[in-house]
């Protein structure tokens, strides 16, 4: 066990965990931020996507001792009032079915739009290809990303 100081969603936290603990479980078990989801544990599905200094990473393989002083953003901190253009577009297009993968989809899309504010359809598909939606909401996700990009 070791003490780690973390900056999550603009707040400072301190946790006492094993250094090999993935951020996914630090967030979910220790910081009570459960919006980041467990899907595969091996960076294959994208449900656990968070931002490290604005870059989308898979928190299931991002170990707590590798974070250092980088700023962590989770779905809970993507916007102050849940009104990020992507969150609004997700509601407008009524994207979710079961909803479980959607926080990961939104976090991945937010990093995409930050790097490429007006992606083409192909760029969206390819950037989002690591995020699985088992319910099959892909066409709506793409439409919502385009709506957010145009807002």
């Amino acid at each position, binding site marked *: 066990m070791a003490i780690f100081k973390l900056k999550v969603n603009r707040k400072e936290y301190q946790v006492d965990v094993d250094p090999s603990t993935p951020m996914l479980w630090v967030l979910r078990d220790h910081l009570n931020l459960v919006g980041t989801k467990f*899907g595969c544990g091996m960076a294959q599905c994208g449900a656990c996507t968070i931002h490290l200094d604005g870059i989308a990473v898979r928190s299931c393989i991002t170990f707590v001792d590798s974070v250092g002083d980088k700023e962590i953003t989770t779905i809970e901190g993507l916007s102050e009032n849940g009104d990020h253009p992507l969150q609004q577009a997700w509601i407008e297009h009524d994207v979710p*079915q079961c909803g479980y993968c959607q926080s990961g989809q939104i976090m991945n899309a937010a990093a995409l739009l930050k790097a490429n504010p007006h992606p083409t359809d192909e760029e*969206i598909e390819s950037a989002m290809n690591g*995020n699985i939606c088992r319910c099959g909401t892909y066409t709506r996700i793409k439409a919502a990303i385009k709506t957010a990009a145009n807002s």
Partner: protein
Amino acid sequence: MTIVKTELNRRSFIKSSLLTGGGLLIGFNWLAAACSTSASKGQSIPDEWFEINGYLKIGENGVVTIMSPNPEIGQNVKTSMPMIVAEELDVDWKNVLVEQAPLNTAIFNRQLAGGSDSIKQSWPGLRMAGASARKMLMDAAAKKWNVPVEEITTELGILYHKNSGKKAGYGEVASAAAQLPVPKEVELKDLKDFKIIGTSKKNVDGHKIVTGQPLFGLDYKKEGMLIAMIVHPPAFGMKLKSFDATDVKTKPGIKDVFQIKIFNDDYKPQWCDTTSFTELVAIVGNSTWEVMSAKAYLKVEWEPFADYKIAMAGWGGDQLVNVPAGLESTAEHNAKMTAASAKPGKIERRDGNPEEAFKEAAKVIERTYTAPFLAHTPMEPMNFFADVTADNAVLIGPIQSPEYMEKTLAARLGLPLEKIDIQMTRMGGGFGRRLYGHFMVEAALISQKVKAPVKLIYTREDEITFGIYRPAYHALYRAALDDKNNLIAFHVKMGGVPENALHANRFPAGAVDNYLAESWAIESNISVGAMRAPGSNFNAVAEQSFLDEVAEAMGKDPIQFRLDLLKRAKENPVGEKNDYDAARYAGVIELVRDKSGWEKDSAGKNRGVAAYFCHSSYVANVVDLTGDKDNPVIQKVYAAIDCGIVVNPDAAINMTEGAIVDGIGQSMYGQLTFSKGQPDQDNFDSYRLIRHTEAPKEIEVHFVQNEIHPTGLGEPPYPPVMGALANALYKATGDRYRHQPFIKNSFES
């Protein structure tokens, strides 16, 4: 308007507080936060609620809370079921809050997510719940104003008495209405007067989903809760011999390691108790990562089991199921299926004289179709919270079959039914996997042993290798043509491991004079169960691909060929047990023909068509694709659907789009194979699911407009697209795709 008697659902309209036990309170605050939802933002929460019946309560300010009775699995019933109540209550949807109901069989009927039946079966009850509450509010207003109730009208949550000019919001009379007796009969609205049903309403959990608030079983927490995981046999055909937990117990955060036994020896399992692994090792600790890491240090010895029989209490009565010993492989399954298909099967339906017709035929077309085992892979792995004490058990989490699992839990824990409290969280998918709730029993036994609240979590590997899979299927189709290319006989012989997909009385039964349907099955120890549109999810692919080949051999357009058969089935059906409505079937084919411009715009396109009937609804698809064998690009999918009245159109379109993507993904890539009893795939690096780049570029959905009561939508849009895809792939590549997965398959490689 329709007048209906309320007897049918009378128990539902009695106040729920009289019926629910105090045991529901544990964990209730978390659920109140996670499971109640604003239909839209900005309602003010009332100071006081008045319960009108088990389905709804009204606040003094007119805000209404409607309970959504059925488990929410992504099919959006948490929005659409309350919409139906709100419609008959005649209230403004903006003033509706929705809460997930707990399991309460005293109030609610059929709290099950399965069979595409939530809306279909609850339609009358939900309407009566709203209508009877409206009548009680009208009775209360009539009493207050001292006027005949017949003169009271309602609109958007306001009661009016036109002659006197009096009006009152529902909230103003809710207190009085709550004291009145339940009416003996109520008026239901005419369909033409619907204001909510048939309009698109946003998912009531949408805001919570996109902001990452706790909603799912995996998100549930309780003070003092421990985390548990299970270790199960690595292969089907194996059982636990012994284990050594010495190392595991030394790992940080680990509290206990022990064996659990899912059933008592004399227990007769129900259909929802399907499981291959009844003896497991449980590891319990403080946090998820500690338990997950410690799992690797468990030393376990497994051993093969001998043949055994299990008495299952099924829907069709008790049956003795033989579970053979052995470590099975896909190669062995395929060889056995090929051999079985060459022998006569069990005759399930025979019309005319098919044997003679095949003998006389000028041409016989014979094709074989196969599909592999599939794992359900819902995005949220199996999990459940349990808090079991000597005289009470609370279970909270994602389950499709709570009212059945309640019985299993009561039997295993030795508690009366009323001491089992089950609360349903939103489910991160299920697709049938969460009908089989052995994980609830596991969680309960672990909690009972450690005497603490416990959340059981499966890893993805547990989820895929401890499956209740879609069976492996095999089908032989034959068609006989006379010398003028008329279809004179049709023969289907279906089999599978360990069950087949035959629906003997479905189309084209009823449309061909000489018809033979046979079945066979090969025993297996691999556990199988329902996956989205069971049976149909193979039938539609095989049958609709075969019909495409038959139409081609006859020199007919594939749509006209199907319509000609359906015309025959409608006007002069063969046999009496045909389970489909030929006119509705033809209706969706005509609709997809027109919407896709099949007759005018097909030139130069690689198009395939298919249509299927299952779970009481009818769906037809046209698929357009470009590219080649190695890189097909699905440009557009058209869907035409007859599922009766559509409650929430945009949500229905969403579910259809999802079913189409799911169908394309499973038929193109889905495959679970076995070597020595062990699944060869165990996570998303080896078990392939469809991804963004592989989804259709465009999906266009059309519904037949009619006044038929809703007939279900969760499953029907899933099967036919796979057939349409196979037929479009043929157009693009010149090859027939008869074996799934289409891009790679164990059968032919």
